[in-house]
């Protein structure tokens, strides 16, 4: 008798694991996913399925080729695939999510070391890559026709209309619910995204800091600066990708700060850039790029926001020592 297990402390662990967190994110995205399919019909469903399957496939393929442990069961590729699809227009060709998935998983995620090591949000990186490479396919918005079988007619997104200096026809209720407006599959129904975001907050998967500060910053800037003659801060919150970005993209663990103060700075930066791009930039929407740019600032932000430790010595004393 001497064969007892010896291991480091602690000997009890919480039940939560990576898979359960990723599962919660998928659950939180379900309302918006369902609404996307309801509004945009079979093409949306097809794109979502293709995108998720491609992400899982590329993760598996890369890990297989590189002789690394296969970790697709942690569901992180499913989250990336779902988010990527939600950032596509429903009219996108079927190969688009496949190309995007390859970029997201292989270039943005695996080449930097896989899960947790990516310095930018993989789904957003994929979207940015697609937008730069296939601008026509990525910006052909159609009206939500659901399963009616009607031909999908081209429309402009509310933000694109705003950019031209005209108030869109869509009402505030329309942009809240996603009815009668064009946009990415997953971004039009703001209410569904908010429900999902509340679920993530309730499950402690994300903290309130990034989404609340991000949204609040956009609201304040849009109210203070606003567009010429079209100051509609509330409308700006729900038209476009802000809810999807604030709750699901900017909160990506790997590419956002871990420190409380850092998260607030990061979120203010996202809100500032989003507002500036919307008001002064060449694009109608700025959520994706603002998050990507802020992703790059994370190491710097973290460096200056390390929490004060319990029992920290006063600064002067430390300086004296040095």
């Amino acid at each position, binding site marked *: *008798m001497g064969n007892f297990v010896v291991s*480091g*402390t*602690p000997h009890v662990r919480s039940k939560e*694991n990576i898979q359960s967190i990723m599962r919660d994110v998928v659950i939180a995205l379900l309302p918006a996913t369902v609404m996307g399919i309801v509004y945009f019909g079979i093409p949306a469903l097809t794109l979502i399925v293709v995108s998720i399957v491609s992400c899982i496939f590329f993760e598996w393929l890369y890990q297989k080729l590189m002789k690394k442990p296969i970790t697709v069961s942690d569901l992180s590729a499913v989250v990336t695939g779902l988010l990527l699809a939600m950032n596509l227009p429903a009219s996108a060709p079927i190969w688009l999510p496949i190309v995007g998935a390859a970029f997201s998983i292989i270039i943005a995620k695996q080449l930097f070391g896989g899960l947790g090591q990516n310095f930018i949000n993989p789904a957003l990186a994929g979207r940015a890559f697609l937008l730069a490479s296939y601008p026509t396919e990525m910006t052909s918005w159609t009206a939500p026709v659901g399963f009616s079988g009607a031909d999908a007619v081209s429309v402009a997104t509310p933000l694109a209309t705003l950019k031209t200096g005209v108030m869109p026809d869509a009402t505030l209720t329309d942009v809240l619910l996603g009815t009668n407006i064009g946009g990415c599959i997953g971004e039009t129904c703001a209410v569904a995204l908010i429900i999902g975001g509340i679920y993530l907050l309730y499950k402690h998967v994300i903290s309130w800091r990034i989404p609340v500060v991000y949204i609040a910053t956009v609201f304040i800037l849009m109210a203070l600066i606003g567009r010429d003659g079209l100051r509609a801060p509330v409308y700006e919150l729900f038209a476009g990708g802000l809810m999807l970005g604030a709750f699901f993209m900017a909160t990506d663990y790997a590419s956002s700060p*871990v420190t409380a103060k850092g998260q607030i700075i990061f979120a203010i930066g996202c809100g500032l850039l989003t507002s500036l791009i919307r008001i002064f930039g060449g694009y109608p929407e700025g959520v994706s790029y603002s998050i990507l740019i802020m992703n790059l600032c994370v190491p710097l932000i973290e460096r200056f926001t390390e929490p004060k430790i319990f*029992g920290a010595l006063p600064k002067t004393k430390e300086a004296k020592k040095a």
Partner: protein
Amino acid sequence: MQALTFKRGVHPPDGKALSAEQPIKVILPKVDSELYYPMSQHIGAPCEPLVAVGDHVKVGQKIAASGAFMSSPIFASVSGEVVDIRPMLVPGGATVKAIVVKNDGKMEEIEGLNQGRDYTTMTNEEILDAIKEAGVVGLGGAGFPTHVKLNPPKDTVIDHILINAAECEPYLTCDYRLMLEEPERIVRGLQIMLKLHPNAKGVIGIEMNKPKAIEAMTKACEGIDNITVQPLVTKFPQGSEKHLIYAITKREVKSGALPASAGCIVDNVDTVVAIERAIEKGRPLMRRIVTVSGKGIKNPGNYKIRIGMTLRDLVDAIGGFNEENPPVKLIAGGPMMGPTLYTLDVASVKTTSGLLCFTKEEAYIPEERNCIRCGKCVDHCPMGLMPFMLNHLALKGDGEGFVKHHGLDCIECGSCSYECPAKRQLAQSIRATKKIEAGKKAAAAAAARAKAEAEAKAKAEAEAAKN
């Protein structure tokens, strides 16, 4: 009264139901069994044996001591013959020189034992000396000599004496039982401590998950105006000295400082009872209460054992392992901070508060995955550290960065590893690097001291030569 607490921390399942309702049972070592008395059961200088092989020792006989102030003597807890002095495994995993006594079963007591005194008639020096001479150390786990703790540097003002009755480690219930069964002795022990520091107030901090203990202690404190019972939020590591002080006084013990610097003396429940025994009963520290629990033991419970018994003798005496589901992991102490044992042939020492026998299911170690930077370790670290970053630096071997990011302030509570969804061994890697860096720091300090001494000597010699 409102429950107090500290910032951050975790809520592991407490597992106390297994043993909480089991009254403390006295376990005496079997006749002819061997008891082991390791020379180092405390923080400070190890003791040297005062007896030789072949000597006959009696209960309460001082068998080892050290001349150093920062040390604590060791007493025989049975009568019998010293059969050997040899290295023996202690729960921390070290092998320490130990006196081996074969129990003759007669429990003959040494003369002069049981000379209890009334503390109110004693001077502070007499009380401190009696505590020292009874071998009392912190029984919560660290083993800090109590007479040193009670006698802080002259210029420190002590205004709080806190009794650590949080018992925040899951599974452990020995302090809980003690509070239910002998609350008056805890109060008397605290009164003795308050005699040494008459301007301090005594506060007994108990977690809210022990309402019966709060009730019993409150009743025992009735009519004593300088002692109060303070309910604490049930949260790990509430019983960490620094966090208990913060919860009750809202003072932060500065990095690297001792509790006395915050005006506090903190002692565990069983330690206070040991003080009471030493003064009022005139009996040195020879016994302690151990919680034996986990699904792998047949009769989980709280046992009053003679210090020096091997854990194998203890397990045999209480009915052995659960044969249907035998343990695969043994833990000395609680599951958050207790070290594992690879064998039961380990001497129980003054600081042995628990023995957990974990079955295969309880001992399950999940696979370590990539850090996903979720920040949960940062959100829960009671010291306000960034464990994921320290883990990264530790694995990289970057000791300098580790120290810069306050790695040495880690209290090794394991909250980070507990919370980590990627199941990373954060606490383990941090503890290992802490040991290396603390060693380097001590070596550097010693080298600097040696250098300064050598320089002073050279200077003195040069001066002498000049003259």
